């Protein structure tokens, strides 16, 4: 695959471009105003708009979570009716999954970071990128229409025949909303795959691609391959409800279990759409804050692809007690364990990266530590519910609820927080308060475990999920869990406070590369120029070559826009890797 801007000649004239601190022109100072933002094709602005939208939905989903945890303080009614409670958990799930976790890292952070890590000026299809955002907004509007009419009480999984015939809520509005949202996901995936293939700066071979981009690449592949199945499933469900086409309706000869197959064929890979980009962030942050080359680059890179691939073959593990065929159940269980292996490899490689590093416990690194601990628990309990006979007992209990929160929140959201803190100076040009950052990370870690550890115990004791009333013996676990959720809420409020504060006039200005990272995105100014770099970067070192001096990461093409030749001009040979990797600039 031809990389984007490598001219045919073997030797490139390069010089050093050192990013200045406090740049005059940035993407934030150029093209200002509401209209400029709304019509922008700049990937950075679109990324921020996605982050803003997901933050809004995270707030909404979070409030729903606190409300439903509050309802569960007492075994019977605490303050809402059963129907309201059913709506709370359904909307919490649907909003968090479809509107927050799936788009937050790829479409939000990814949009911002991906072209910068590639040394590109934008994604391959900037207008399509903006279209993605507006499609997301339209999907959101549909969902709000549903909220304003009868809400949704089917559970985020929409199981038939409850969702197709029994529910009296606004199922069609939500399924259409998510159908539309799916196109946002598909277009972003298409855009990113093409960008990674076609827009890499000279010298970025596949072996020098940051692991964050390997992860986003794997994610995009899943998005493109799995989301259309969700689209067709939701379309069929909509038609089922709209005119009773009967495909999932037992009364007409259809099969409700078929719906579950269709649904999980998307929604299991979707779990990897949610977690794999988090893996990418962890790889970036852990190398930066231990100032060390990633341990097992190819193992980490390929395990993302392996997870993406095997992830397509395990959907049936959500259905061990659904009445699917025994052969299918056996095969799905087996494959489920295989997907655990690349995940384990990643965790161990990250821990090995720390060995003999120079570890700086800044806020993003604290989140990485939280991630490694919480995600490991999520992984081990995943093995537990993958084991057939154990799953029969644990299926649809709070054990499963705790398991996927350890993965989705302990994994993805914590990784998102790591990434957000890590790239905050790059995105905004401001430093947040490090002390408050650590305090908030502590709140979230403690609150999280307090919320979800008791759920493992009560789930294992038999407490089913999606229960409005529960029997008295589970009271203490539910109450502990509710208290934990309040602590998480305080943690997030604190984060919102100090991040917002950093944006005001007195916020401390961030240097171009506050963490001393070797990643290409840190060689742009903070915040970056409207076109990211005002030169074409040339990459001769991998993104984790901490044994190389910083100068070697700041090279750019000399003969671009007729720039003048300076004394530091050197030639690097791009055809023979050995030679130019060892090229000494001095």
């Amino acid at each position, binding site marked *: 695959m031809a990389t984007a801007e490598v001219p045919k000649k073997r030797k490139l004239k390069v010089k050093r471009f050192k990013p200045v601190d406090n740049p005059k022109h940035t993407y934030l100072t150029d093209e200002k105003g509401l209209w400029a933002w709304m019509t922008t094709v700049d990937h950075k602005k679109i990324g921020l708009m996605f982050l803003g939208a997901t933050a809004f939905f995270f707030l909404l989903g979070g409030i729903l979570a606190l409300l439903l945890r509050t309802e569960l303080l007492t075994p019977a009614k605490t303050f809402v009716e059963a129907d309201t409670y*059913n709506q709370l958990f359904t909307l919490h799930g649907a909003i968090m999954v479809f509107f927050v976790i799936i788009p937050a890292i790829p479409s939000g952070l990814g949009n911002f970071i991906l072209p910068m890590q590639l040394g590109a000026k934008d994604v391959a299809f900037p207008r399509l990128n903006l279209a993605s955002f507006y499609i997301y907004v339209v999907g959101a509007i549909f969902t709000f229409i549903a909220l304003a009419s009868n809400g949704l009480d089917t*559970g985020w999984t929409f199981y038939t*025949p*409850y969702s197709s*015939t*029994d529910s*009296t809520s606004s199922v069609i509005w939500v399924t259409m909303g998510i159908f539309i949202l799916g196109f946002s996901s598909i277009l972003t995936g298409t855009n990113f795959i093409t960008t990674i293939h076609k827009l890499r700066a000279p010298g970025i071979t596949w072996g020098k691609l940051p692991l964050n981009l390997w992860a986003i690449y794997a994610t995009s592949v899943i998005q493109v391959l799995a989301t259309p199945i969700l689209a067709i499933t939701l379309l069929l469900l909509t038609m089922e409800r709209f005119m009773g086409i009967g495909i999932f309706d*037992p009364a007409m000869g259809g099969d*409700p279990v078929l719906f579950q197959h269709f649904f999980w064929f998307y929604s299991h890979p979707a779990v990897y759409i949610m977690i794999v980009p988090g893996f990418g962030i962890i790889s970036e942050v852990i190398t930066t804050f*231990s*100032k060390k*080359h990633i*341990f097992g*680059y*190819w193992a980490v890179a390929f395990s993302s692809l392996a997870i993406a691939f095997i992830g397509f073959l395990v959907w049936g593990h959500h259905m061990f*007690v*659904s*009445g699917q065929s025994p052969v299918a159940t056996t095969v799905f269980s087996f494959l489920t*364990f295989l997907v655990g292996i690349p995940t*384990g*490899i990643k965790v*161990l490689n990250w*821990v*090995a990266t*720390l*060995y*003999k*590093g*120079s*570890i*700086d*416990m800044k806020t993003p690194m604290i989140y990485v530590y939280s991630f*490694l*601990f919480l995600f*490991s628990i999520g992984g*081990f309990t995943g*093995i*537990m519910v*993958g*084991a*057939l*006979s154990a799953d*029969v*007992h644990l*299926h*649809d*209990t709070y054990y499963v609820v705790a398991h996927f929160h350890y993965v989705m929140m302990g994994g993805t959201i914590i990784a998102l927080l790591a990434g957000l803190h890590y790239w905050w100076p790059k995105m905004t040009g401001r430093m947040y308060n490090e002390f408050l950052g650590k305090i908030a990370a502590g709140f979230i870690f403690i609150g999280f475990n307090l919320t979800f550890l008791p759920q*493992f115990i009560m789930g*294992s*004791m*038999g407490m*089913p*999920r*999606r229960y*409005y*009333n529960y*029997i008295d013996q589970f009271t203490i676990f539910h109450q502990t869990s509710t208290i934990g959720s309040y602590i998480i809420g305080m943690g997030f409020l604190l984060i919102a406070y100090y991040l917002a504060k950093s944006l005001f006039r007195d916020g401390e200005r961030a240097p171009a590369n506050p963490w*001393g990272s070797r990643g290409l995105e840190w060689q742009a100014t903070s915040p970056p120029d409207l076109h990211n770099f005002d030169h074409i970067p040339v990459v001769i070192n991998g993104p984790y*070559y901490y*044994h190389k001096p910083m100068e070697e990461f700041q090279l750019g093409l000399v003969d671009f826009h007729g720039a003048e030749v300076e004394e530091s001009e050197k030639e690097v040979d791009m055809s023979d890797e050995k030679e130019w990797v060892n090229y000494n600039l001095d």
Partner: protein
Amino acid sequence: MDRIIGGLFDFMLPELKSPLTGASSDEIMAFIHIVSFIILGGVTFAMVYFAIKYRRKSDDDETPLITHHNQLEVAWSVIPLLLVLIVFGWGYQGWLNLNTAPDNAYEIQVTGFKWGWTFRYDTGAQIPNEVHVPAGRPVKLVMKSEDVIHSFFVPDYRVKQDVLPNRFSTVWFQAEEAGESQVFCTEYCGTSHSNMLAKVVVHEPEDFQNWLSEQAADGGGTPVERGENLISIQGCTTCHSTDGSTLIGPTFQGLWESERTFENASPETVDENYIRESILNPSAKIVEGFQDQMASFEGRLTDDDITDIIEYLKTLE
């Protein structure tokens, strides 16, 4: 040994009352817990130890270039692979057992509906929300749903199976001692999902026979008694109270010959035909203030059944 260490995690599980179905599940859970704790402990220790030992001393710290180590990669791929293969085999074995009911199992027919359970015995007896079984003998439940998907879960026995509207599914267990166990519905099925509970009542074998023979085949007794039994078996009382309180549907108390106003029809007085229509075609007239939620009982109740129910409703003044 296994049981002793595994016992560390027993606090997480309810007392096992059907070892034939649950023992293997408990063992595998204990095994996974132990191995997981060891590995998690190791990983956590390494992380924390590195964070202290290799903490950054100055911004100019030099770190060694360690890119990869093939033997290590192979080791931490193959060892977990072997471990998960063990878990897979173990889980598969236990699951096969859970899916193979012994030939001599005592069979009970189960119907799940929104929101309750009916258990039918070969004598014709029908019991709502309580399944009585003999101790020390395998019991097999043959289950179907009247409406949406439900799931039959007994934590004490470590068994669970979805109950489907278009096919039969089965579950089996063998309770060893007399006592009671909780049954939950574990597939979300709407408003009163969390009230869709039942009890397994285990009798000594001879007590069970006595109990069974006491149960009349078709509810027995006068039409009023049969009607009372029917509205309980068929789950009517999950939504319609008999004491005047409002549940999901209007109460039965004082229903007979009362004046009704509807969302979608002109008012009328409750009589036989109105009740009959409400049972067979519930959507035709929706009582004001309520939603169109009820499913038709066409095919589930005979004309005689409906007559009996009407007789019973007449008594609820």
